[in-house]
């Protein structure tokens, strides 16, 4: 089966998070979800929706400091932020490969394009883009892996 792409529109942060929650139910264990979008596009907001659906109770903050935060919910979640990473060598020094290939839960990666060449083909992709003049309306593009 080919990769499939779906475009959706949301009108508020709550709607974007609800969309993330619906996607969480679809993601198998070990799934790697790459989030794309500029600063303020709502990547962390999307991961918060995902986390809530996975049963994570702790507040999910931005992992900018340690770059990888792990949460134990009903299903485990690893939240990765590669904003300050300069390529695969850097990311792999942080142990990213353990998350890409050996993690039992869901892995959500912000700024995954920083290590594009090292990502497995089985990744899911979510692109967030501001739409219209409001601060919260977004176009969300979901790309599902083949098979």
């Amino acid at each position, binding site marked *: 089966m080919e990769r499939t792409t779906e475009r959706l529109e949301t009108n508020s942060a709550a709607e974007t998070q609800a969309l993330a929650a619906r996607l969480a139910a679809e993601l198998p264990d070990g799934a790697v979800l790459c989030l794309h979008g500029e600063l303020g596009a709502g990547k962390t907001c999307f991961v918060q929706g995902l986390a809530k659906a996975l*049963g*994570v109770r*702790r*507040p999910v903050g931005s992992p900018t400091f340690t770059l990888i935060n792990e949460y134990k919910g009903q299903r485990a979640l690893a939240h990765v932020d590669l*904003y300050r*990473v*300069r390529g695969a060598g*850097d990311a792999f020094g*942080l142990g990213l490969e353990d998350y890409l290939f050996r993690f039992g839960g869901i892995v959500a990666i912000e700024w995954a394009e920083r290590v594009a060449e090292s990502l497995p083909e089985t990744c899911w992709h979510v692109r967030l883009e501001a739409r219209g003049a409001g601060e919260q309306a977004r176009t969300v593009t979901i790309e599902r892996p083949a098979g």
Partner: protein
Amino acid sequence: MLVLGIESSCDETAAAVVRDGRAVLSSAVNSQIASHRPYGGVVPEIASREHVGSFPVVAAEAIAQAKVAWNDLDAVAVTHGPGLVSSLLIGLSGARALGQTLGKPVWGVNHLEAHLAGTFLDPAAPPPAEACPLLVLMVSGGHSCLVEMLGVGDYRLLGTTLDDAAGECLDKGANLLGLGYPGGPVIERAAQGGDSAFVKFPRGMEHARNRKTDNGLEIEMCFSFSGLKTALLYHLKNHPADREQHLADLAASYQEAVMDSLAQRAERALKVTAARTLACVGGVAKNASLRAKLEDLARRHQARLLLTPLAYCTDNAAMVAAAAGLRALAGIGNPPAVEADPSLPLVEEDSAAG
């Protein structure tokens, strides 16, 4: 008790000698800010490479400045988390090598507890037992939380950030304003003479009364900065000329929103806890506007304010040695430094159901 502290959790390589958890005999810090400035933040691979080069230099400098011999040390204390794993590992390996060579114990210190211990590096601060219960506002590039300290090693988490840390919010704001890095000091400089009421930026979760996070924290004592960053982004999109014409006003308004929301949450915590002493630690504690707000707050609530000496706000090793020394003297001991834990919590937040 003489402890050599080692710190390498982020972009500062530091070593210091502290006697009895309070008296700093030396404190050597090698900051990598210049190396990371072109990237607008800490680049992990650059950080760990620089830690390798700096470690032996700062460790030797700390011993020489303290005018002690290596064998005078009672222990080596090293930050084992939280932080960047590739950076933590350098300090940890170095500390363990030193401990083995000297035949001294090597203790693992929580970086957040170390920041807290920095409060007591002010010779004018009371001993911890006298200051507790102590309300601590912990604000840095990676962390923003409110903690009640009941005694050495005994902490209760009151609130935390729901998204970005305060320092991170300043870094991202500085980036949007084209001001450079690190965000806190460059925004503070740009804000001088600016009108802090030019734009009323959101304070985040302002009206969240009687609501709790899923793990039981009161939302009115939590921080939220992602809306502020987005508000600045949209203000600049809608008023592109302001970046040139009102840079000082925007920087001042943005800084005001961050510092006001910190002070506001600290005030709420002062009202609901028994703490009558307030402390502020971490890199953002250097901000003059935050210090002024906390002084005002303490005056209005007849609370005592402990401000960490400026030299010990940003990452340093004196606070690491101090934290280990305070624990040892309080009789609760320190864990051995075995491995790096990038997400080591100060207080277990997952206790309820994870």
